[in-house]
């Protein structure tokens, strides 16, 4: 596939998927919480741009609504809420020492390759672009999981959780031009409620273990010892 031979829209979508994938890697190696949240907001912004672009090129009004919802939730509300938590806990100067950073980054790269491998069969049904877009979305989902495994702060877990949601949203926008409106509204509602619940949880965790380090939550075991 020669990228110059594609039309402008396809080129733009491909660059957007590359950028979204890149932000996921940036988050993976980030030890400072505020910067992590900032990169997350950037990823949200990229999603908003992609959505508006698809909406514009298809002249599809309901996608504009999704774009606005994404902007409000993923660029403004959630980053603002997380930032408030970090500042309130006075964690903005801490740098989390990430164990095995190299291994995690290499793992992230192999997850991306793995996503391409898993979605290979899709090529028979559609274009190379679709494969790229779907594979990047899947790898954003998997990188989000890796982010949650490699970080210990609850805030980072929430960022990972929400970036998984971003990956799914990207897949829905690029591969299928968005889900039906009711479903999209439902998903946005769930994300909103989840974000609010996370806020409540931070409060509870802080009062119960006086920290947001989830490694300290280790009272429950598979079998009692």
């Amino acid at each position, binding site marked *: 596939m020669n990228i110059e031979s594609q039309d402008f829209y396809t080129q733009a979508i491909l660059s957007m998927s590359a950028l979204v994938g890149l932000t996921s890697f940036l988050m993976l190696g980030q030890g400072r919480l505020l910067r992590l949240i900032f990169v997350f907001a950037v990823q949200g912004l990229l999603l908003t741009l992609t959505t508006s672009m698809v909406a514009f090129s298809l002249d599809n009004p309901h996608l504009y609504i999704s774009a606005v919802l994404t902007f409000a939730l993923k660029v403004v509300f959630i980053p603002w809420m997380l930032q408030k938590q970090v500042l309130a806990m006075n964690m903005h100067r801490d740098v989390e020492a990430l164990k095995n950073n190299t291994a995690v980054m290499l793992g992230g790269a192999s997850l991306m390759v793995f996503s391409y491998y*898993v*979605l290979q*069969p*899709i090529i*028979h*049904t*559609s274009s190379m672009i679709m494969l790229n877009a*779907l594979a990047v*979305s*899947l790898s954003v*989902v998997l990188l989000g*999981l890796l982010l*949650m495994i490699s970080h210990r702060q*609850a805030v980072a*877990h929430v960022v990972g*959780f929400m970036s*998984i*949601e971003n*990956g*799914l949203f990207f*897949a*829905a926008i690029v*591969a*299928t*031009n968005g*889900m*039906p409106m*009711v*479903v999209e509204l*439902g*998903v946005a*509602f*769930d994300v909103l*409620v*989840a974000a609010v*619940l*996370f806020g*409540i*949880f931070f409060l*509870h*965790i802080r009062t*119960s*273990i006086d920290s947001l380090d*989830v490694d300290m*939550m*280790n*009272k*429950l075991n*598979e*079998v*009692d010892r």
Partner: protein
Amino acid sequence: MIAVYLLLLLSAAGILFFGLIGHKEDIGKLNTRINAVSLFITIWLAITVFNQGTILSSGKAFLIDSFNVYLIVLTAFVGFTTSLFSAPYMAHEKEIGKLSDSRLKLYYSMYQGFMLAMYLVLTTNNMGIMWVSMEGATLATVLLVSLYRTPESIEAAWKYFILCGVGIAQALFGTILLYYAASQIGDSENALLWTVLHEHATQLNPDILEIAFVFLLIGYGTKIGLVPLHNWLPDAHSEGPTPMSAVLSGLLLNDALYAVVRNKMLVDGATQSHIAGYLMMGFGLVSFLVAALFLHRQKDIKRLFSYSSIEHMGLMTFAFGIGGPLATFAALLHMTVHSLVKSAIFVTVGYASQLAGTQKISGIRGLIKTQPKVGWGLLIGTVAIAGFPPFGVFTSEFLVLLATMREYPWLTPLLLLGIGIAFAGLFRHIQPIVYGEKPEGQSPIKANFIPVIVHLGLALWLGLAIPGFLSDWFSQATLLISGSAL
């Protein structure tokens, strides 16, 4: 069709109403009444479906067929009997100072929220909405798990939230792939409707659907509690209030399995192969065996029975995976009896732990001597869940064994082994609890035993003779799911 709207509206009204006044005296009774009305509505709905066959609402948003209608009735029934139990239970918890007014508001409001999400999962015709409401069920129950605000319960709720949230996100990816496959054959606005998908199942691209099913199984499988995605389940069950454990075990797990089976029907149609079934059999069998082994190492009575739930859900997943009419019939029956028996057990366990003042198995002793009803209830419940005749669990497990012997004879020893291990695991813990000497100063408590008696009675009835209309239903559902009649 009006019954469905009424059902959903009633629960939605319940959320708002209890959110405002859920702390008042006797509010538990009102909750019971709302659930009783819901039960009547669902029975009305069931009768309509029984007479008219499948109903599709005018906007095609809701679908009631023989598969989901009996689950809807079961949901309403368990919701109702559990609310009977929850009213005095929560009042007691408030009396001993474990809960404040605002938590009680939250509890009742979210009880209805959970019921609403469950009804939506079952009634909706849209695979996307099914996902949304499944996630909604997590969101509704997550604050209930941490209701007591102990460090353990907060840890359990966090684990539940993160694991189920991440897990169910995989199911959304699967749903998007499904939509992608469906939008290739046209009509993208209706492409997520189950009826449309099912009609065109053979045209869907098999490669995409295979990939999609892996994600769907992992996603909804997290909610079913399939090993190795089960870690949240024992924690959430043991740390939340007991009525919540009863509905989680009796309803949430069933409905997640329902979502998987709905998707499996599409994938089977598209691939014309047994790949989805093999995946389900593998996951199911591993869950069944691992959970049976874990039963032996438990020290907390609610954790003990939540591992038993994982075990039974594994068996059902396995049976749906085998796929023939006999196995499907057995799985449907097992879903019903497991819900009935397991929620009855959680009710008695709730009383037992209130009696003893602890959930530690080593601290609960001499139940029969203290309060015979609690002791016998727990013992009979355990006998029933372990698969002894004449209870319904025996019938369904026996049918699963028969189906396995017919299709995959070499797996039968594994199943028998699992059933044996689970039986031993349950009884080594339950025997001293019910027969042991009663500790000093343990006295009977006020308890409502109607739910336990009704549930176990029904399980017994289903074991002795399945009533005609019910077996008709199961047969119709079997025909729908497996494609051939029993």
